[in-house]
């Protein structure tokens, strides 16, 4: 058994809801509610789910941009809740994040050179001439011209801007990068370029990626393993091929059947989800998916499902997975 580079154990992150003039706490938004996840060295794990299911919160909690409410994040065997500020600074070199909207994640008042130099300045690496050289090297790595150095983020196209974001993330040669919807804001052809760039960098730098996305088809190209999230919890986890060929959880089936297939002859059983995502302040009792599940039985409202192994390294959290009809979904 390999030791994972990153592991989360029962990770929880609640946001307090405060009401009244004294701002008394009246409840919690349970954005992340018990997520256990492993990422191995050099591996790409896709984390998918619809908006508001807490997948970005998982990413930010891993990087301690948000403090976990409970649970552990273990990176290279170290429990991150126990380490001090100075150690965190060193750790920042090893874990990085790429955001969804590069226009937002790049400071519009800084030039590309200043943006890319910042990681080295923060960690007091190199002289200014050396840093310049490193910045040039970074630009080359992500496929931007050296002349970009003096320009501002808004002078670039969306794809180029995301390349700048990637360059910043890889500047300190991290081991793990959390890609928080890194390609969701880009159009399809640019998405492909950015994904290829990420794959290439992953190969060269032995990166591990936690790829957060709402688009299953993107994740499929990229991931070794996929975890599906619903309302703050992981409902199914399997290798990428397995989850597409043999989706077990009703929610996963619904997601996969929603991938558009560009063929007029394609007639599929669509699993259509009804209703809205329930509020994470008062999540449904029992199985959280029972309010929208086509197969739900009264039992589902009471019992909380546990992660069960369908077959080796395919886990699902559903009470009735054995009884469900075989998947009718054709793989596009």
């Amino acid at each position: 058994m390999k030791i994972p580079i990153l592991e989360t154990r029962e990770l929880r992150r609640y946001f307090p809801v405060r009401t009244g003039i004294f701002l008394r706490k009246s409840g919690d938004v349970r954005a992340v509610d018990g997520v256990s996840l492993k990422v191995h060295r050099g591996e790409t794990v896709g984390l998918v789910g619809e908006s508001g299911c807490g997948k970005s919160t998982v990413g930010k909690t891993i990087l301690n941009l948000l403090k976990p409410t409970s649970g552990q994040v273990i990176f290279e065997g170290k429990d991150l809740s126990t380490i001090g500020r100075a150690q965190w600074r060193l750790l920042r070199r090893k874990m990085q994040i790429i955001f969804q909207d590069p226009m937002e994640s790049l400071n519009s008042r800084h030039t590309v050179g200043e943006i890319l130099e910042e990681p080295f300045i923060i960690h007091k690496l190199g002289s200014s001439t050396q840093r310049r050289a490193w910045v040039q090297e970074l630009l080359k790595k992500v496929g931007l011209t050296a002349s970009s150095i003096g320009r501002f983020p808004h002078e670039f196209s969306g794809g180029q801007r995301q390349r700048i974001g990637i360059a910043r993330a890889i500047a300190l040669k991290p081991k793990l990068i959390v890609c928080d919807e890194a390609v969701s804001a880009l159009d399809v052809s640019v998405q492909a370029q950015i994904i290829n760039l990420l794959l290439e960098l992953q190969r060269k730098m032995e990166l591990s990626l936690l790829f957060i996305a709402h688009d299953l088809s993107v994740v499929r190209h990229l991931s070794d393993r996929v975890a599906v999230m619903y309302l703050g919890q992981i409902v199914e986890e399997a290798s990428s091929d397995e989850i597409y060929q043999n989706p077990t959880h009703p929610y996963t089936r619904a997601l996969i059947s929603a991938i558009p297939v560009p063929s007029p002859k394609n007639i599929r059983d669509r699993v259509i989800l009804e209703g809205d995502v329930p509020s994470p302040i008062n999540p449904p009792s029992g199985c959280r998916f029972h309010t929208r599940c086509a197969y739900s039985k009264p039992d589902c409202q009471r019992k909380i499902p546990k992660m069960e192994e369908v077959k080796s390294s395919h886990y699902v959290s559903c009470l009735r997975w054995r009884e469900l009809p075989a998947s009718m979904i054709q793989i596009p």
Partner: protein
Amino acid sequence: MNSQTVQQWKRFKSIKRGYYSLIAMLVFLALSIFAELLINNRAILVKYDGNYYFPTYAGFIAGTHFGLDYAYETNYRDLKKHFSGQNENWVLLPPIPYSPFETNFLENSFPPYPPSISDQHYLGTDIAGRDIFSRLAYGFRLAITFSMILLACNYLIGIAIGCAMGFWGGAFDLLFQRLIEIWSNVPFLYVIMIVASVIIPSFWTLVFIMVIFGWMGMTWYMRTATYKEKAREYVEAAKALGASNVRMIFRHILPNTVSIIVTFIPFSIATGITALTALDYLGFGLPPPTPSWGELLSQGTSNLQAPWIVTSVVVAMTIVLLMVTYIGEAVREAFDPKRFTFYE
């Protein structure tokens, strides 16, 4: 330079009255720095017996030095008359040869004297016989300096506290919010009156009191702006890189709130000038004989038989405040974030 800044500058320039007001204001400021050379009872340059003298900066030169029959300071206007007709000795006087403190009595009459070109009292004199133009110019310099120092102090404190409130939030924010609300309700004019009745306020005590009661204004804007910027992803990205709080604030958040600060500057200057004038008008400001617009205004309104006093000061104030407001308006327009928001 940041291209957004370039655009904002272009936009500012395209708003003509704001742009020209700025130029005029800068010219006034530049001239007021050299006011001693332009408006003074000491000559700029004196040539006497083959020697050159610069009384503006040289200080006291006794009348006997230039062959006059008195030992007190030379009256250069008289010296000029005295030298007239001599080729080798001459006096170069400033365009307005009166100091703001100097009382000039004309023969056979009492001040205030009406405007007169031959006496070089272009706006007349006040009731003590001091040249109004000179007092206006020095009063302007004082008022502008006062409001700039006031602005710098207010903004320094206001931005620091507002930024800290927005950045740390929580209990600190809550505490300061309530504190500022209470503090804002102290009637500061009364405080100044009380202080002024105990001690005679100097320039710096006045600045001090007004800063103590004036720093709160900026905190609200900075607090909100910091809250907003802090939640944006570029700050999170910096945090993920391991940036310290100081770096996040000074390198990322503050530069992005600069447009708010810049927008408020002209209006704060106008407020500063008005406040000082109001205090001087009421007699709680700077002690006499400091040249001040408020003091002139109160003289003018109580001596309406000499309408040139009140007219000059009201016109001067109107022009200056109008220009500052025009600048402020143009800055606000140029920094309007709606212009630079675009959706992809």
